[in-house]
């Protein structure tokens, strides 16, 4: 192709001429100002002194220390409702006792715990700690290890809390509690405090219920459990062990004014695969119960545990302690989806348990006297209703493991006997109660796992508290079970920031020794660690007044990380953009400036509606596109007119 000099040049000159006609797009800045983006990260921060509590998170989030904060030592009370307290079913005031520990007062801390929780020792070892998952510190790094701090408080029990106890006069009413588990014991404690006479029936030889038989001793030592039980026993509770109550209604007439059903969940769920009826296939709960009650069980060398919850971890670690050489855990999903505590999984792996993720048993069969499990590999599919990715089996990926025992630890559920005669759900696994925990029979109440299904200790405690209130009201009391056990403490001073360290590691006994016995694995923190850990609490309810809030404006890069990290929403990006100084000192912005700075909606979408729309360069093409649209519409109408004709 021959190309003639000049054509392209003329084409180009046409384009420039066209742009000349289009007219300038210039913004005449000092007179004419653009609206900035709503999320503009301008050259300042806006700071809300009312919301800021002086937790120093923003200072630590800054990549290069552009923010400098100084706070007063003396706090002031800001709010009562805190995430950790709100999230706790029993409303234990975690923030308060953590603070007590931080100021070197573990005894007072125990008093605070005792106010809401009559089973502090048991909870200190095995509580599912919903408070930690709600902890504000979680947004910074890891939540404060509240349960372990509770453990520390419990270890420092000097009985001081007893002094403030207010025991009610005996009322002469008596209550029967069926089941000496967490729910039963809690209810017993509160009813005794209200002056009622309480008798606790249990078919096991000791008190503790599921805490005794569902949780292995290396997690919850018997001493700790009995410590709590002894308190209740000392208050005059009557225990009737090895007694199985078949008909609670009959108790009502026989000297008891009210009955609480707290029987717990003791049945293991089935695997639902062929070959399950084999004698070597055990239910996880039964297995743990047998071990806890000291029965001798032969499990052999190769043990497979199916499931990924805490029960599965308990089972596998128990199996290791019983001498099994090869312990496998089969779980359908990956570790990220496992419901068990991360620490439990870590410890199980440390103890030599072989975790097989993305694997599921297909059938159990016996071949030449050897028990075998056929497994199938899975892969993660799309996200299901529970928010987790559902496992999808991979065809043709079956493999076989030789085993001696299979333990099904997927879940457990309660069975409510027919003889109770209360209203139940269809599968006989729940007692149906109203909000006051009353069943359909007047005078009979229910609490704990037989209402909830399989749940946690702290849930059971919370329910039992409600039940105790209702029973007290039913028996003519005022239903007020609140106690004040701790002495008033001044609000804690804090000279600097909360402890910036990550969560402290738990101390465990050595792996080699711990797998040989059932001694408690977790050791209590010493004073230093406990106080350091307690100091990690941000103290969301207290406000340490910020005396200095300096932003080194010449140094800040306005990356927005501080705004993002503020747990209390007290920091805003600012849409300010007009600042230039003659000296470097003037670059530093002080508190007064930051309070007045205009806020932008970066990370604060609630401000979106207040801010003006951004002026866009894209708008200059508006007219052209509008014209085109109009033309098209006209064409269409013309066409339609033609068609009509």
């Amino acid at each position, binding site marked *: 192709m021959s190309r003639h000099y000049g054509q392209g040049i003329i084409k180009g000159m046409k384009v420039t001429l066209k742009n000349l006609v289009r007219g300038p797009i210039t913004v005449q800045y000092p007179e004419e100002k653009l609206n900035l983006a709503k999320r503009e990260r301008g050259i300042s921060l806006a700071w809300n002194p009312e919301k800021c509590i002086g937790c120093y998170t923003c200072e630590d989030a800054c990549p290069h220390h552009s923010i400098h904060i100084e706070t007063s030592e003396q706090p002031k009370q800001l709010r009562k409702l805190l995430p950790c307290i709100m999230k706790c079913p029993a409303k234990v005031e975690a923030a308060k006792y953590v603070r007590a520990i931080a100021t070197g007062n573990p005894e007072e801390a125990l008093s605070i715990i005792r106010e809401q929780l009559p089973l502090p020792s048991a909870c200190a070892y095995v509580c599912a700690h919903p408070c930690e998952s709600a902890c504000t510190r979680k947004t910074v790094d890891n939540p404060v290890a509240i349960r372990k701090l509770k453990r520390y408080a419990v270890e420092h029990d000097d009985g001081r809390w007893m002094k403030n106890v207010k025991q009610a006069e005996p009322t002469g009413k008596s209550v029967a509690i069926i089941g000496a588990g967490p729910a039963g014991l809690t209810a017993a404690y509160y009813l005794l405090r209200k002056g009622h006479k309480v008798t606790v029936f249990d078919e096991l030889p000791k008190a503790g219920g599921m805490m005794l038989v569902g949780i292995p001793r290396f997690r919850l030592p018997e001493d700790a459990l009995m410590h709590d039980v002894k308190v209740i026993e000392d208050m005059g509770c009557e225990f009737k062990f090895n007694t199985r109550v078949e008909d609670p209604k009959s108790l009502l007439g026989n000297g008891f004014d009210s009955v609480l059903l707290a029987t717990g969940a003791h049945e293991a769920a089935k695997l639902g695969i062929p070959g399950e009826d084999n004698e070597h296939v055990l239910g996880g709960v039964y297995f743990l119960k047998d071990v806890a009650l000291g029965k001798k069980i032969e499990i052999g060398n190769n043990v497979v545990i199916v499931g990924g919850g805490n029960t599965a971890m308990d089972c596998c670690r128990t199996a290791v302690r019983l001498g099994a050489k090869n312990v496998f855990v089969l779980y359908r999903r990956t570790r990220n989806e496992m419901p068990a505590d991360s620490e439990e999984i870590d410890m199980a792996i440390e103890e030599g348990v072989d975790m097989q993720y993305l694997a599921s048993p297909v059938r159990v069969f016996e071949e030449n006297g050897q028990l075998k499990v056929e497994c199938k590999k899975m892969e993660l599919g799309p996200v299901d209703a529970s928010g987790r990715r559902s496992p999808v089996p991979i065809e043709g990926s079956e493999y076989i493991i030789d085993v001696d025992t299979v333990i099904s630890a997927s879940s457990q559920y309660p069975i409510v006997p027919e003889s109770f005669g209360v209203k139940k759900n269809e599968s006989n696994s729940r007692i149906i109660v109203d909000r006051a925990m009353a069943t359909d029979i007047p005078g009979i109440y229910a609490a704990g796992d037989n209402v909830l299904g399989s749940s946690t200790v702290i849930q059971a405690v919370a329910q039992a508290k409600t039940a105790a209130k209702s029973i007290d009201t039913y028996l003519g009391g005022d239903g007020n079970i609140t106690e004040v056990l701790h002495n008033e403490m001044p609000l804690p001073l804090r000279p600097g920031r909360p402890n910036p360290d990550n969560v402290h590691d738990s101390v465990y006994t050595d792996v080699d020794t711990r797998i040989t016995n059932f001694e408690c694995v977790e050791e209590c923190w010493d004073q230093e660690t406990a106080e350091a850990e307690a100091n990690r609490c941000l103290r969301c309810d207290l406000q340490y007044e910020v005396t200095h809030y300096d932003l080194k404006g010449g140094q800040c*890069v306005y990356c927005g990380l501080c705004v993002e990290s503020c747990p209390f929403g007290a920091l805003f990006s600012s849409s300010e953009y007009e600042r230039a100084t003659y*000296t470097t000192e003037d670059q530093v912005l002080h508190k007064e400036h930051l309070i007045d700075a205009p806020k932008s909606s970066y990370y604060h979408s609630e401000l979106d509606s207040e801010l003006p729309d951004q002026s866009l360069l894209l708008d200059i093409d508006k007219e052209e596109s509008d014209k085109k649209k109009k033309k098209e519409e006209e064409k269409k109408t013309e066409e339609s007119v033609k068609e009509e004709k």
Partner: protein
Amino acid sequence: MEIAEQPFIPSLNEADFYEGSEIKNLRHDSQAVIPDDMDWSDETVKELNKNIILTTLDDAINWAHKASLWPVTCFTACCTFEFIATSMSRFDIARFGMEVLRPSPRQADLLVCGGTLTWKMAPQIKRIYEQMAEPKWVIAMGACAVSGGIFQDSYAVVPGYNHIIPVDVYIPGCPPRPETLLYGLETLRKKIDHDKCEWEKKSK
């Protein structure tokens, strides 16, 4: 005809070595900040030196300086692109007569220090500043130029241009918006307004 002494021309490796030692010396010498000059804003000094002719002349000259601040094209890092954006059609620095970007420092009046300054670059910046003809002004644009910004604790970064050359106006931001830069230039013009003729300074 006499032949002049041959100038010493180092080999390339030697040249590198000299450069290295120059950087090292500069780094050693410029750990302290050059103080910001705020005398000009002192009103009393201005009152004292009041002289109708000179003041009027001052105003005229300052007006010319203000009206055509030619920046030298020397931008070290990221802030370059916001400077370019400022000089492009949307914000159009040309409205103030500033679009004449002189590539040669001799003809420029304004050094816009946009971006991180490393110790390796510091001698060059110092030289560019020295090559610029009086009167000259310096704007430190962006966090890195003001204080080293996000890189200030690095082994290779000069924590602020004011360790190397005196700076007239500091503009924060990373990078500053074009409007911020224009505001900074406006601030600089205010300073130029207060400038006095050379002879007056000498007489002081």
